[in-house]
């Protein structure tokens, strides 16, 4: 068996003096959809940020069998890792089109995704293509951040809480885009608090608690395991 696309082993991370991640170990295969579940503050976002090099990691992070721990964020992104931050970090003073344009890593290479693809999935973005991104609604901004990252043509996209605070219709649209992404053979690491989308689309799930992985299995395993859900997920 070939090595997984992303392999994280014994990952530790710190914010100042506080120890956030206590040896997180997990992996994602090529083309796989994996969800990372858990309550707020258990270290899910920190895990992604450590992989992207935004938080200094300790331990081993291998992407395509190459150690990426210690690399700079832009180098990691250029290897094919995409990150969609949870705070809908659009560039508010630029237009929707300019935001998407900056998602491209270079103007020379065309990736799997074109701006037209994005507009096909989200016609709303095309209507507002020349509007400043800062005036978009929360849901539209969420779409824009996802599409912007896809414009960089990642092989693995890590998405932090894409449905947080969205109306049900928007959640459905996000689900549609996730299927579209998976359909093109791109791996997804979905960080979520709610089970709705995660159970439906994931191949495998991890549950985090107190900076560690406390459960790993298929959606079926998790559905059967009421104990884990009660202890680590339900509020």
């Amino acid at each position: 068996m070939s090595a997984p696309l992303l392999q994280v082993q014994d990952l530790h991370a710190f914010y100042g003096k506080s120890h956030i991640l206590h040896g997180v170990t997990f992996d994602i295969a090529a083309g796989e959809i994996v969800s990372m579940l858990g309550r707020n503050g258990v270290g899910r976002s920190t895990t992604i940020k450590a992989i992207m090099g935004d938080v200094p990691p300790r331990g081993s992070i291998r992407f395509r069998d190459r150690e990426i721990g210690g690399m700079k964020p832009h180098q990691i992104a250029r290897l094919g890792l995409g990150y969609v931050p949870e705070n809908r970090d659009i560039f508010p003073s630029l237009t929707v089109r300019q935001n998407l344009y900056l998602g491209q890593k270079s103007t020379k290479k065309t990736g799997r995704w074109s701006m037209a693809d994005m507009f096909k999935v989200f016609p709303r973005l095309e209507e507002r293509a020349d509007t400043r991104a800062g005036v978009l609604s929360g849901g539209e901004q969420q779409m824009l951040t996802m599409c912007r990252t896809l414009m960089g043509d990642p092989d693995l996209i890590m998405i932090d809480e894409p449905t947080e605070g969205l109306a049900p219709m928007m959640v459905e649209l996000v689900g549609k885009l996730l299927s579209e992404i998976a359909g093109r053979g791109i791996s997804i690491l979905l960080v979520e608090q709610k089970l709705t989308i995660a159970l439906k689309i994931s191949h495998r799930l991890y549950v985090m608690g107190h900076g560690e992985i406390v459960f790993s299995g298929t959606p079926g395993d998790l559905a059967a395991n009421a104990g884990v859900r009660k202890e680590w997920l339900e509020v």
Partner: protein
Amino acid sequence: MLEIITFSTLNGVLYGMVLFMLASGLTLIFSMMGVLNFAHASFYMLGAYFGFEISRRIGFWPALIVAPILVGIVGALVERFGLRRVHKFGHVPELLFTFGLAFVIEEVVQMIWGKLPVDYRVPPSLDFTAFRLFDTTYPAYKMFMLAIAIGMFVALLVVLNKTRVGLIIQASLTHPNTVAMLGHDVPTIFMAVFGAGSALAGLAGVIAGPAFVTQPAMAALLGPILFVVIVVGGLGSLGGAFAASLLIGLVQTFAVAINGSLADIFGASAADWFGDLGTVTVAQIAPIIPYFLLVLVLIIKPTGLFGTRET
């Protein structure tokens, strides 16, 4: 009277545009680093001295191009090997670093070119009268300065708003982490912005040197006014920097030209009322006016005229 207004406006706009050549770079650098670069006016001075030295050897026109590039390289090196290392220790060490750098540059300039002003003159090809109005002549060199400053302003707008690099810079100023995670090399962009900002200050120095005085104190003389511009305009706002540059330029130029005093306005009897204060002319207090404006703005609108950032 019309004569004074016309020429003061011209001179004020010119001075304002020169200020903007420095303020624009300083504002971009401020947005990026989060601290003011105290050495920015020193790059302006370096531009003037490099311009002087190159003019003397191979002529003014090559100097106009080469000197700003050299200053830009010095700026980029300062960012790469100085500020970037100091950055991780926080804002106060960064501020102290730029403060110290300003002194170092001044001392080095004095060691090489001496304490007295150098003989940096308007090039003969530009040393003629542009036009004559109401018996007063206006030098062509000042029109040339104005053209360069306006050209730079237009170029800056086009680069920032119409090019990919400009868009990446705009995004990096507010969201550096996000830009990096999209695969753009933010540290290198910052170095380039610092270098380009220094080069602009250098260009301002090259063209202002012959019109004003090229001396080791020129950085220390201009620096405080520059900070007034940045604060009045609003920290981090390019539009604000432009408006404030023109405002300060015009206010200072007009103030010098007005010889009125309180006694003139309210009549001789008022002179007794105001005492000595009544006879002080506006021209005499001209140098204080920008700082008065600074204090006023900080009291009424601390974010500056166009600023949104709290500092």
